[in-house]
């Protein structure tokens, strides 16, 4: 671990690190020069492929492979840099933008050269006002210095970067949602195919990459693919920015090789759990990835290992620590509120399902919970997230995953919470209960006996007794 030398964050502590002078003084734009003057775009794509750089935005898709999906005979390509970092507790992209904007620009230059894109859009999150200003200043500096514009480094390659600030929607971090938003439309993700590489922004081939992914590219060019692969764990190479927040003493953003464990992050970098408490759970990389229980804190945080715990993936590597005094129900409540608020409203399962979660959580929190609510929520979460393809984008999976994880890992605690938080007047009304139990409306509130053959009780929609009797 001692041998690890931070590269992405190397300028963070330097005074005035946003200025071109400081960046150049520390060897900046040499990688871009090397790439543009000595390498061909195809060689660059091959280099990134060889480095096995995987997208840092959440899904971990190999970047070089993504670039090679672009049609060979394309006339115009767009690069979209995804800075719509809205996953709760994630702030590594903000650091990269605010503290080292020229590293970002250099990454964009090389990546655009590799993908032959002469226009790049940096889509910034609405709330990143400071980062947007820093980037705009840096872009102006770079253009004045000849790093942007026409014929960069005499290579005949032209590039313009435009900074676009979003309008405050989580969904615009999804690549096709981002493209729609960039086009000036409502941020509703598109169906795929056609994939953005074939038909993206303004119906042109488009590459959408995360900020951190592109920031890795200059260092790969500078030091080679072998250096990159010497860091991290198998199939998850390279340095990664981890952010640690929640119930820890020090909330930080640190650069570490992929594959550190949550416990290492808490103990070595975040100064331990606050108030001397213990960690009960942790979010591995943004809440949409699920929850780790206390005994899974030693699982390496990389693209592969983390999946074995039942989490969706590494996500943005934004670790949120939850101490042992916090009810998991509160975490879920916040999570459900977030996803109900951020669901774009396009696909039926997500639009209705996320709100259903939220309303149920609200009732449970208020004291009207029933134990069967947990069953219903688990079934809903399975329906929403377990079969891929239920919705257009991954938001529904993200909304379902923390619930699925909590149900398997913290079920006794959730049940105990419901038992100990009971308020008679917050329960569903008798009529609602009757509908739930399938009592015929004509029998409700009457002295007539219930039907001798009771209607089926709550079942998963998947086991619709009318459609598939007996199952």
């Amino acid at each position, binding site marked *: 671990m001692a041998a690890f030398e931070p590269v992405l964050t190397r300028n963070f502590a330097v005074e005035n690190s946003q200025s071109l002078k400081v960046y150049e003084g520390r060897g900046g734009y040499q990688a871009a020069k090397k790439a543009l003057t000595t390498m061909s775009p195809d060689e660059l794509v091959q280099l990134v492929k060889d480095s096995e750089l995987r997208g840092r935005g959440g899904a971990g898709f190999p970047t070089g492979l993504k670039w090679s999906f672009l049609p060979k005979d394309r006339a115009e390509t767009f690069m979209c840099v995804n800075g719509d970092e809205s996953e709760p507790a994630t702030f590594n992209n903000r650091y990269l933008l605010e503290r080292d904007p020229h590293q970002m620009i250099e990454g964009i230059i090389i990546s655009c050269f590799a993908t032959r894109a002469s226009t790049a859009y940096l889509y910034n999150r609405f709330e990143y006002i400071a980062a947007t200003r820093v980037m705009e200043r840096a872009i102006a500096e770079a253009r004045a210095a000849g790093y942007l514009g026409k014929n960069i480094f005499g290579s005949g390659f032209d590039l313009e970067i435009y900074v676009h600030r979003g309008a405050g*929607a989580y*969904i615009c971090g999804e690549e096709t949602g981002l493209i729609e938003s960039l086009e000036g439309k*409502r941020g*509703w993700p*598109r*169906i795929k*195919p*056609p994939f953005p590489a074939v038909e993206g922004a303004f*119906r042109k081939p488009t590459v959408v990459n995360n900020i951190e992914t592109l920031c890795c590219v200059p260092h790969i060019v500078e030091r080679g693919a072998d250096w990159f692969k010497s860091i991290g764990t198998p199939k998850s190479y390279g340095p990664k920015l981890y952010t640690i927040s929640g119930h820890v003493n020090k909330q930080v953003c640190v650069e570490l090789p992929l594959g550190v464990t949550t416990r290492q992050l808490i103990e070595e970098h975040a100064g331990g759990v606050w108030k001397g408490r213990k960690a009960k759970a942790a979010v591995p990389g943004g809440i949409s990835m699920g929850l780790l229980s206390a005994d899974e804190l030693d699982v390496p945080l990389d693209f592969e290992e983390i999946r074995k715990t039942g989490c969706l993936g590494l996500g943005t590597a934004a670790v949120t620590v939850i101490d042992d005094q916090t009810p998991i129900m509160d975490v879920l409540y916040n999570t459900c509120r977030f996803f*109900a*608020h*951020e*669901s*774009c*409203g*396009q*696909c*039926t*399962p997500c*639009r*209705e*399902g*996320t*709100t*259903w979660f939220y*309303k*149920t959580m*609200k*009732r449970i929190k208020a004291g009207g919970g029933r134990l069967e609510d947990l069953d*219903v929520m688990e079934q809903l979460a399975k*329906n929403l997230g377990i*079969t*891929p*393809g*239920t*919705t*257009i984008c991954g938001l529904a999976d993200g909304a379902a995953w923390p619930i699925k994880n909590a149900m398997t890992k913290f079920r006794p605690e959730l049940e105990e919470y419901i038992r100990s938080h009971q308020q008679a007047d917050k329960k*569903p009304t008798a009529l*609602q*209960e009757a*509908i*739930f*139990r*399938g009592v015929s409306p004509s029998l409700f509130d009457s002295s007539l006996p219930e039907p001798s053959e009771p*209607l*089926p009780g*709550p*079942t*998963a*929609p*998947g*086991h*619709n*007794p*009318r*459609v*598939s009797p007996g*199952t």
Partner: protein
Amino acid sequence: MATIIINGTEYTLPEGERLNAIQAAQRFGVEIPYYCWHPALSVVANCRMCEIQVGSKDPKTGEIKMIPKMVPGCQTPAKDGTVIVTDSPEVRSHQAMIMEYLLINHPLDCPVCDQAGQCGLQDYSYRHGQAIHRFVEERTVNPRKDVSDQIQLNMDRCIMCTRCVRFCREITRTNELQVERRGNHAEITIFPDRPLDNPMAGNVVDLCPVGALLDKDFLHKQRYWFNDQHSSVCTRCSTGCNIVAEENRGQIWRLRARYNPKVNDYWICDEGRSSYKSANDANLLPAMYLREGGQPREAPVDRALDTARTRLKEIARQGGTIAAVISPFLTVEEAYLLASYIKGLSGEAVLALGPVPVVGEDQTFAPDQRQGRTGDTSFVVPRPFTIRAEKCPNRNGVERILKHFQGEVIPIDRLRERAASTPFDALYITGGGHEPAYEGQEWTKLRDGAKFLVVQDVWPTDLAGTADVILSSATFAEKAGCYVNATGRLQYASAALPPRDGSLPDLDILAILAERPGGGPISSRDVLSELAGQVPAFAAVRSLDGPFPEFGLPLDGSEEPTPGMFRYVDPWHAPRGRVSLAT
């Protein structure tokens, strides 16, 4: 030729068709339920109702590989080797799940909803849904509002399929509707003070799979299932859109678009949609009249017809001059019978084309294959829709008849000039149409241009008031027959209403006057085959055998039936008693 496998059975699709899984399955009698997909609009796949399991068969090894996730049928092309599974437990449970979700915030006010009976939610709940509901929370109730003076939007019933939004973006390209807010609170809305008032706006009501968008004109007037559906042709302009006239208790309640890719695609204009009102008008001629003592007096039908017939015959025998005005609102058959009747009375008789109302200019909505659309639009066939300035259905057809009988088309103005200088001994004027045509002094002057005047019309006009005989005829809804639209396509419209009291359909009136063997009633098809044998412009009809072609008959030139052009309606609009379109 493409072979696709649906639920284990191999089917062959003809060459040159681009179908998605929904269409392909429907062709072979397998239903894939859907809400948001529409063949004329972009695929957005947001209702998720049509999800199926898809795979492909390796042509060499015959091995079938399934995609691990479910895929919406609307975005799955039916290609050679495509494997589709629509009846697995996974697919069924998914459909049940979507139904459960869709009904969470839906008010279930079917008893007072106009869509009931032709509602996608109702039909699919019955087929794919479940009787119990696990949702015990407060519902989200989005507000009810008006999107225009004519259209009401019940947001609480909306399922966010966005068909209406896409229609305004892609077909009319006027962009009135959009989605506002997010998640469960997302709603369809207009911009402030920009109502949904384009000339085709009413189509969003037809498009809406549930009762969210409703026409205020029809609101709470009739239950859908009480209405008889009559296939007809709109007579409001010379485009000749195919429509369904909904009739109950002797009244038309609304008109809806009927699919015809050669004419109107899936749409009709709002003007045409509201043109049914003229058939219900209280001012329509209530009886036939004879002029007695300087005043029109109500006369029994037989006496009115008898008077007209004997007087015209007498004038013809005495060698008097006879003229007739053939209205462009008459069907081809009526025009033919009238022309041959008048020419039979006197070879010298003059036939003129009735007044052709023209309002404004043609207005064309030309959707683009890609502009304004999203995703893969190669399945979409964009077809322009024209609202024509010529506000009559059959000028083209009447002119063809006139040219046959006298070699030229005499416009009404020429006839009026001639009548003013040398009055005719007998003048036979036909009317019809949605508004009274022969109103005002300029028309009453025609009275002086004829010694004997017969007016056959549906409206009590100024000119009719001066006529010797007023023959009360049929509105567009009361008669069956063919019209030739502006592009020369012969289309058949069936009668939606019985004749009013005291009136006869024009065809019967003319058959009685002409003393055809057997008299009336008379079948329009018989007259059509007779005229096809005589009038060369209608020669194309001679080859007609069996039922009248669904999409009409082009009179000039021939057309090959395009593959895949089978009748389309959303399953919830399927004929009564059928929940599915699949056979």
